[in-house]
């Protein structure tokens, strides 16, 4: 009967279509997993230029939101799925994955790629036992971004290297809740790469640390209590509503809309907040180093979104060609030509900070470089620690338990528990996880 036949034919067709692979040509196809951040989207937009130069390499893009991306690539590399030829990963993953032998060493890259040109602070974080395992695409530290007009109105002057005391005072003076202007915007959204990145970096300036030399968690210390109380105090009094769900992106759009007096976050944000196309306050932004508390350490972090090649890829050469193109000096110039110097990916190469044109176009360049140079992943805080990493602890378990600690701190910011309760839970939870991991 007709219907049955149609049904069968349709299903055969569907299966055939589903099974049909893309017709093979001599092209090498590489699949690139990347974050949907502005700089990466720009890179994707410039892919045509890459294809002009290398017509036999086809690029497949998998652009995902940061959390989804991180989960997908981690799952793929640990299980050996081999779905990606180039992965966008950060300073946290590279040392761990490099040590496991999951990444292709980048030691035979072309001469003109000039690996020595990378900022030492950045490339040291991507190096394991003297071998570079990922190419930095853009690097960042964190710093204070503030509204010069509001600061003036408040009758204050932002020093180049402010203290937390000054930040609190300025936040109070700038807050005008009637007009939806909040003195300070900070991350509150739970996640090891969200609020915990900020809070861990902040805690360093108060002399706190995640673990002592024996890997004992330190959330029961005075230093952590001071850190969290200072944070909660300034956010509850002068922060925007709903801060406990604000991450980088949410704060960026608040700042661009002119709703934040100060914002302490990634240096890459500087080019977004000073871009007149997106920002209503583009010409009223000043920059300063991340604050300190008189302990000799500042609360700035260090991060580099980097391109890495998983070992076992079937297109290693093509992947290297792409990585060299995207992180080379030529790419910087390409972006400069197409989008202007202010939009080139910052924070990776010394030569960029010697380029007059860039320094002129990017008022934030000097502060970015200073912040990056100020960071020391080996000695992140006042007391010695057994780990590397400023806003993270470079051990595999960190991303898991730090996110849970982040949820406790986020709940404290939302007023659902006190700082003491949050710290107590954090201590219990991290001790438990560390014991499970066998420290």
């Amino acid at each position, binding site marked *: *009967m007709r*219907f*049955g036949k149609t*049904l*069968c034919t*349709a*299903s055969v067709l*569907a*299966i055939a*279509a*589903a*099974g049909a692979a*893309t017709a093979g040509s001599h092209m090498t196809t590489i*699949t690139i*997993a990347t974050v*949907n*951040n*502005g700089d990466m*989207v720009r890179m*994707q*937009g410039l892919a045509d230029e890459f294809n002009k130069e290398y017509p036999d390499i086809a690029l*497949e*893009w*998998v*652009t*995902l*939101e*940061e959390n*989804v991306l991180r989960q*997908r690539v981690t*799952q*793929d590399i640990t*299980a*050996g*799925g*081999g*779905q*990606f030829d180039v992965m966008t990963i950060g300073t946290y993953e590279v040392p761990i994955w490099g040590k496991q032998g999951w990444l292709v060493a980048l030691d035979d890259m072309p001469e003109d790629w000039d690996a020595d040109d990378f900022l030492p602070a950045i490339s040291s974080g991507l190096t394991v036992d003297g071998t570079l395992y990922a190419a930095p695409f853009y690097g960042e530290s964190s710093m204070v971004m503030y509204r010069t007009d509001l600061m003036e109105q408040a009758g204050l002057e932002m020093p180049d290297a402010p203290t937390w005391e000054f930040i609190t005072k300025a936040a109070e003076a700038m807050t005008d809740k009637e007009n939806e202007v909040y003195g300070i915007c900070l991350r509150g959204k739970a996640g090891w790469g969200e609020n915990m990145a900020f809070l861990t970096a902040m805690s360093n300036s108060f002399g706190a640390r995640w673990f002592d030399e024996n890997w004992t968690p330190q959330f029961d210390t005075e230093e952590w209590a001071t850190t969290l109380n200072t944070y909660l105090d300034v956010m509850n009094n002068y922060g925007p509503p709903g801060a406990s769900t604000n*991450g*980088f*992106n*949410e704060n*960026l*759009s608040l700042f*661009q*809309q002119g709703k934040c007096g100060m914002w302490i976050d990634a240096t890459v*944000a500087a080019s*977004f907040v000073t871009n007149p196309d*997106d920002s209503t306050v583009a010409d009223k932004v000043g920059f300063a180093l991340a604050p300190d508390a008189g302990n000799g350490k500042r609360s700035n972090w260090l991060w580099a979104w980097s391109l890495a090649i998983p070992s076992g890829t079937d297109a290693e050469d093509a992947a290297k060609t792409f990585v060299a193109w995207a992180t080379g000096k030529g790419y910087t110039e390409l972006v400069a030509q197409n989008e202007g110097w202010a939009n080139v990916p910052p924070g990776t190469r010394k030569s960029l900070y010697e380029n007059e044109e860039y320094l002129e176009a990017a008022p934030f360049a000097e502060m970015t470089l200073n912040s990056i140079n100020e960071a020391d992943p080996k000695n992140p805080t006042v007391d010695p620690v057994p780990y590397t990493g400023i806003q993270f602890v470079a051990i595999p378990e960190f991303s898991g338990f730090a996110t849970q600690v982040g949820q406790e701190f986020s709940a404290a910011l939302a007023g659902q528990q006190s700082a003491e309760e949050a710290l107590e839970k954090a201590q219990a939870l991290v001790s438990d996880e560390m014991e499970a991991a066998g420290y």
Partner: protein
Amino acid sequence: MARSVTTRRKIINTALAWSIGLLIFFPILWTILTSFKTEATAIANPPQFFFFDWTLENYAVVQERSNYARFLWNSIIIAGGSTILGIIIAIPAAWSMAFVPSKRTKDILLWMLSTKMLPAVGVLYPLYLIFIELGLLDTRIGLTIVLMLVNLPIIVWMLYTYFREIPGEILEAARMDGASLRSEILYVLTPMAVPGIASTLLLNFILAWNEAFWTLNLTAAKAAPLTAFIASYSSPEGLFYAKLSAASTMAIAPILILGWFSQKQLVRGLTFGAVK
């Protein structure tokens, strides 16, 4: 049939139903409207409803950034393939449950449904390893099979309830005439059940289209459907409401239109045996 009511009552009913309907529909309407705004207008306070400068800019940006057609095609193939495959496997099973019931029929039916309660997250890692072994990662065929299995219980149940409404005597008669089992199902039962099969098809197409866990976790580039397309717009840097709305509209429009055109079948079919 029609119950007589006063005009006044009808007016009240109409007003009430329309307000509730619009309220429920509002989030979708708002998303569609926002997709035609600039990013600045999208967050304006007071919110702008109809009188703003309509722009197609967001659609242009989304189209430029991602290959919408490929995501759409993958969604169609995967949702369509899994549904059709599922129906082919389910028809015989549903037939035997409906017309040759045994003591265990209902248990089997409920057991089938219970497989849907297994937490997908718990088996993701094992399944990922199996997919690597079989080379099914990022293939449409792999995803088609998984979604077929995920929805099979629902398909079996729906078909079962439709088949049960068909009087057994007709089949008996066909059998008396010497029809084989195969032709009985193919030529007698299936045509009578076409409306039921159509609505099963429709409902499961929608469920497969909207499935967001497996589709996201078992694909990368080649087989990624619209759920992955959305994941690249979910929280980028800077203002994004308008672009997110445009991408959302593009992701839900095909299924929304399909659903609206075929809502009669869907409504008629959505009984799950709830009505006798």
